[in-house]
């Protein structure tokens, strides 16, 4: 095929020289247009818009630099740094370039007295071309090294992840490995964003996190307990203000910490949280409408079901209604209520409250609840007062929030810019109001099991729970307890949820030997609310005010107090 055949001109009808001229003209035109276009673009790029180009390039440089080099920061809700990355200098040496080894060692020890001369000599005598002497040197030492002048030394820039608050929120922050890759907590969950230089703003409040930790830690020491967990969460949008798990660790030493301390008791550990689950039983009872509000349950005698006997810590000699079952924390009453609504309804509500699934919290250390699902009467009864159901303290917080938030599901979140309102109604507003009223009575009523949590003005409400600790080898430890409190404040319009769990407290002389939640967990709540309410902007109010009486019901509680706080 000839080169000009593509013009598809019938040459037989044209003069040869004329057609050649046309072809040449067309080709010239194409070349001129092409080169003019390229030339124009070249001029534009090279000179005309040089400044604009420079700005564009600079913008790209900045974005790329920020994203490529330093791992992003983690901030708390008030923009305080919880984790950041800084440049550090590491000291390396090429033994092959060292001329006078003894002199080099002497000079190095002058600056770094901790270096061992024998080990140094061994390193310098090796055949390697690159040996790391120190992973980190200070800028001061770097200048001294430059001044003193040592041949073969190589100073390399590296980065280091630091946590200025040491152990504060260490279980949430997690840690990074030696290469700066997130291996736990927020560091792992948001590794790709942090690697790209993006910062993360957590909903954690450093001050409240510290107060929760300190008060919980003090109580653990007072009762010689093994550990504990504490949670403060917004009752309306699920933002978590503090999550404490004790014992904790210094986040700067993550890789050197024992795995026992790394375990997050608040979100990963699952426990039978005892009578705190009675709140859910009461809510189901009200919501299912299978039980009349004034219906009473005889709790005067222990209840025998199959081979098990269900009894009360504090026996009452008469029939009691639902509010009294909760305030007196009656296992018999709770079991009888559960028997009425049955296993299917119980499991349906446990599922909808999120107590059978892993939470959607933004850390990888999350525990999966364990619930006996054989639908037997005995299981339904024991689950009603918190035995046969193991959940994390965070699950309990979330369920409590849903109950007091007019029944609208609350999913906890650790992110400041995320609110977990999905408008999923689990229980009705009426049931929620009844529950809030009963929870308030547990703390304010003279027969309530959480009297020691009462702070005048802050209208705390909640429920205590004491359960025997599960023995990993089967059965329960008879002398080891898990004590818990879950509640909210102020109960006429709950703003914040508080959940406290303490693992295996020992009876003390000042507690008359008691190691129940009323003695161990409730006082922590009192001290915690007293300290954090002013920070959170919750104003104290009078229980007699119209605002209070309008939002809560007044149940009458009968009974006599034998002195113990269950």
């Amino acid at each position: 095929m000839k080169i000009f055949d593509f013009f598809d001109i019938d040459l037989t009808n044209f003069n040869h020289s004329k057609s050649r001229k046309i072809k040449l003209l067309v080709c010239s035109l194409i070349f001129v247009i092409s080169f003019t276009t390229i030339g124009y673009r070249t001029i534009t790029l090279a000179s005309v818009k040089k400044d604009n180009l420079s700005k564009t390039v600079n913008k790209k440089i900045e974005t790329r630099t920020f994203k490529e080099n330093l791992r992003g920061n983690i901030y708390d809700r008030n923009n305080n740094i919880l984790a950041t990355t800084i440049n550090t200098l590491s000291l390396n040496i090429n033994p092959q370039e060292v001329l006078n080894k003894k002199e080099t060692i002497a000079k190095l020890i002058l600056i770094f007295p901790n270096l061992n001369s024998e080990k140094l000599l061994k390193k310098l005598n090796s055949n390697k071309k690159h040996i790391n002497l120190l992973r980190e040197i200070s800028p001061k030492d770097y200048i001294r090294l430059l001044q003193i002048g040592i041949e073969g030394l190589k100073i390399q820039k590296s980065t280091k992840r630091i946590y200025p608050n040491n152990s504060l929120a260490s279980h949430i922050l997690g840690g990074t490995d030696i290469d700066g890759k997130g291996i736990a907590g927020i560091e792992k969950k948001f590794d790709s964003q942090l690697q790209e230089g993006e910062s993360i703003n957590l909903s954690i409040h450093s001050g409240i996190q510290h107060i929760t930790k300190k008060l919980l830690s003090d109580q653990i020491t007072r009762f010689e307990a093994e550990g504990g967990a504490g949670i403060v969460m917004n009752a309306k949008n699920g933002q978590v203000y503090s999550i404490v798990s004790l014992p904790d660790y210094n986040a700067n030493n993550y890789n050197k910490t024992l795995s026992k301390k790394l375990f997050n008791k608040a979100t990963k550990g699952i426990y039978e949280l005892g009578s705190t689950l009675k709140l859910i039983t009461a809510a189901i009872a009200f919501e299912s409408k299978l039980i009349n509000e004034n219906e009473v349950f005889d709790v005067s005698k222990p209840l025998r079901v199959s081979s098990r006997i269900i009894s009360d810590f504090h026996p009452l000699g008469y029939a009691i209604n639902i509010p009294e079952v909760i305030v007196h924390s009656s296992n018999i009453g709770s079991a009888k209520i559960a028997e009425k609504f049955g296993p299917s309804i119980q499991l349906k509500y446990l599922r909808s409250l999120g107590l059978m699934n892993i939470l959607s919290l933004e850390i990888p250390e999350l525990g999966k609840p364990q619930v006996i699902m054989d639908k037997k009467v005995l299981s339904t009864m024991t689950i009603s007062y918190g035995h046969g159901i193991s959940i994390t303290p965070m699950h309990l917080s979330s369920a409590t929030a849903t109950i007091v938030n007019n029944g609208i599901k609350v999913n906890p979140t650790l992110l400041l810019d995320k609110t977990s309102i999905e408008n999923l109604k689990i229980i009705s507003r009426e049931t929620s109001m009844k529950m809030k009223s009963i929870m308030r009575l547990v703390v304010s009523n003279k027969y309530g099991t959480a009297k020691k949590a009462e702070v005048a003005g802050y209208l705390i409400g909640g429920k205590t729970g004491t359960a025997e600790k599960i023995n990993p080898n089967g059965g329960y430890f008879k002398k080891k307890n898990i004590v818990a409190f879950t509640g909210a404040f102020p109960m006429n319009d709950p703003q914040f949820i508080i959940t406290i769990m303490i693992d295996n407290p020992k009876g003390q002389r000042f507690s008359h030997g008691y190691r129940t939640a009323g003695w161990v967990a409730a006082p922590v709540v009192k001290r915690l609310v007293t300290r954090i309410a002013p920070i959170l902007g919750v104003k104290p109010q009078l229980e007699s005010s119209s605002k209070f009486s309008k939002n809560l019901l007044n149940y009458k509680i009968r009974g006599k107090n034998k002195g113990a706080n269950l």
Partner: protein
Amino acid sequence: MIRYPSFLIIFVILFVAISLYQIKHFISKKEIELARITNDINDARSDLNILKAELSYLKRPDRLENIALNKLRLREILPTDIWNLKDLADVTDSINNGDLK
């Protein structure tokens, strides 16, 4: 004999060659500038992080608590220290009505 279109083509080719050389030179300069700016930004950002971390370290809640309690001799705010006007009015009304003494 060289004709006008040929002149134009030669001129355009020369111009493109020179421009390309200029661009290449310009890009080389920019790459050096990029490396320098990258380093500078990185260092500045690291310095900023150090300062922020130091500030955060100084503002540690346990340190502030220690200063407040031991140096400034402050105490925690009790509910009785805070009153809102609405409650105060309610109490006054209750006292006036004889509900409270």
